[in-house]
């Protein structure tokens, strides 16, 4: 079982990318579990027609501990096992605590033992702002962390912060940095800026994605690009990224 966590600045395209990776892995015959670690609970939307699914935090709120593992998941396109951690009411409560609770519940109910996924993808909100957001990179959760970024200054800045957190936690046996994923926004010197960031943290750019209208079209259909437009150039990019991510994760801490 390979467990991968995806971080990056808000709005950078984590959920879209992770869902497309899930579709690509599933199309290759792998059993995939995608866990959205965002209070908005919309990480997996494009894997089940854009509809919202009940989050683990919803279940905890409604029924304390009186629910089954099956109720925590929903099967999406390609058989991807979709889970949404959920979170508190916006502006109230503690989102980090929500992630901790959700991941603990998955462990308690034996999610990994029962479903035995080949690949687990954690789609994590924004930045490592508190203990809750570091949870997916801890021992027992992700093996590798991938950071999505564009060449925009704030995105690079956020990516650097996340990479720093991964480095700081490395001594604890937490996840290693699998690499960066460049999600192009077509800003000047974009590839060079991200390559420099990768060099600063002694990691590699595992893959790159072009900006494409196809992504928006698929989103409007409530589907992933890989599922809705499998023959498109963008789908090919996601499939290539899936291969690259797997290769980088298997390589672990080895230098690029």
């Amino acid at each position, binding site marked *: 079982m390979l467990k991968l966590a995806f971080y990056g600045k808000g709005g950078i395209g984590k959920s879209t990318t992770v869902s497309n990776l899930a579709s690509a892995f599933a199309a290759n015959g792998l059993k995939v579990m995608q866990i959205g670690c965002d209070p908005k609970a919309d990480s997996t939307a494009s894997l089940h027609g854009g509809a919202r699914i009940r989050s683990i935090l919803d279940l*905890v709120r409604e029924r*304390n*501990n009186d629910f089954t593992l099956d109720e925590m998941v929903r099967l999406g396109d390609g058989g991807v096992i979709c889970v949404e951690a959920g979170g508190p009411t916006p502006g109230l409560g*503690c989102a*980090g*605590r929500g992630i*901790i609770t959700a991941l603990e519940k998955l462990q*308690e109910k034996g999610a990994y033992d029962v479903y035995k996924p080949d690949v687990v993808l954690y789609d994590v909100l924004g930045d490592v702002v*508190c*203990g*809750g957001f*570091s*949870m997916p990179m*801890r*021992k027992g959760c992700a093996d590798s962390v991938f950071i999505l970024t564009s060449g925009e200054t704030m995105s690079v800045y956020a990516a650097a912060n996340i990479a720093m957190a991964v480095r700081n936690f490395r001594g*604890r046996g937490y996840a290693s940095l699998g690499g960066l994923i460049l999600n192009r926004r077509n800003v000047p010197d974009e590839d060079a800026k991200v390559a420099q960031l990768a060099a600063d943290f002694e990691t590699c750019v595992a893959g790159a994605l072009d900006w494409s209208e196809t992504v928006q079209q698929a989103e409007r259909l409530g589907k992933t690009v890989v599922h809705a437009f499998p023959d498109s150039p963008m789908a090919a990019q996601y499939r290539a990224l899936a291969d690259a991510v797997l290769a980088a994760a298997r390589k672990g801490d080895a230098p690029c």
Partner: protein
Amino acid sequence: MLKRLNGQDDMTGAEIPIRDAAFPAPFVSGLEYNAPARGPWNIVHTGMLIPESHQVFACAQGCLRGVILTAAEMLEMGRMSWISVDRNDLFDGSLERNIVDGTAEIIRKLPKKPRALLLFISCVHLFAGCDFEFMLGELRAMFPDIDFIDCYMNPTMRKSGLTPDQLMRRQLYALFAPCPADPKTVNLIGNDRPTDGTSELAQLVKLAGWELRDITLCRNYEEYMRMAKSTLEITYLPTAKASGDALEKRLGRKHLYLPLSYDFDEIERNLASLADALGIAAPDWSEAKRNALRALDRAKEIVGDTPVEIDYTATPRHIGLAALLAEHGFHVTRVYTDAMIEEERPAFERLRALAPDLLLTATVHAKMRFAGKGVHERGDVLAIGQKAAYFSGTKHFVNIVSGGGMYGFDGIARLADRMVEAATHEQDTETVIQYKGLGCRSCL
């Protein structure tokens, strides 16, 4: 507008005749009251059962008050230290570091290194997502000759998962790792007081030539750690069942849950299961049953029609005990219970049919604030349990918690004898029940 809940005229919501009561939760949960009858053990008392151990509590100062007072009352302040948490620890990300460094400093300053250290983290550490495994890993690397146990003081989580009491009883045995077993050895797990040697449980173990091990009997750390090598695990308190299940899973050894009971058939079934696990034929228990019945008859003769009131702290099977006593002609009028366990359902139905007017009374309902101290005083009551004694204001009570170490037919006979003793002797209730942790050093 505020309304005074004086409980003098209207106990609606705080008590209900059993005929109208819902099972297992007869009362609505709300604002709660805690009566000053402190016999049941808390996590500090339970943790102290590990010989030669030291406890470190990391929590806010307001929460430390209770645990420190417990240790002080036990005259065990030398076995407890603490690390206080303040707001800045959250801002600068030092929650984990402070625990590791603070615990290390405590250990270095102790006059003698403990064999085991129970490290308690609190709600704030769990909310903040502290990595307990990381902290323990650091401490284990620094002090390889000390066994560290992760413990939890997290009252805000008591409504889900294991209760703090269950969790503490489970963690008492967290150090036990898989190892070759000593033949013919059996652990009694999760109790906080020894079980009577005259009980059929103890007698059966002896008859089979097995050795009974119990943390309450361990005089030193070696004896405690020898329990890790026992062949069989037994629990009989509901709060200890999770401990037995965890050991069975981790050590791959059989766990027998033989619930404390006042039902003759259930007792006999439990003893048959135990005999089977010990590899001997179950003896004939007829004489033991007759003894129990004779003791109940004697007690009934003395107690007569005096109202009997029982509370949940006396025994986890308080409904079962009430049913047994009602079936033997005792005038059981009230059971103090906030909720019942599923195991009590058959006894609940029997009691409902037998004594439909019997009152179930909540102990934590806000109206109970005024139920003690004479407001509801019924001086002629025979109480079983400290809360029943407090609320009724009686001087005649059986002072036990968690079954009092009395088990089986022998346990019923002993309890009947204790009722006679209580009926014929007055106690200074207020003085007796104000101490925490009945059976601890502070209460000896």
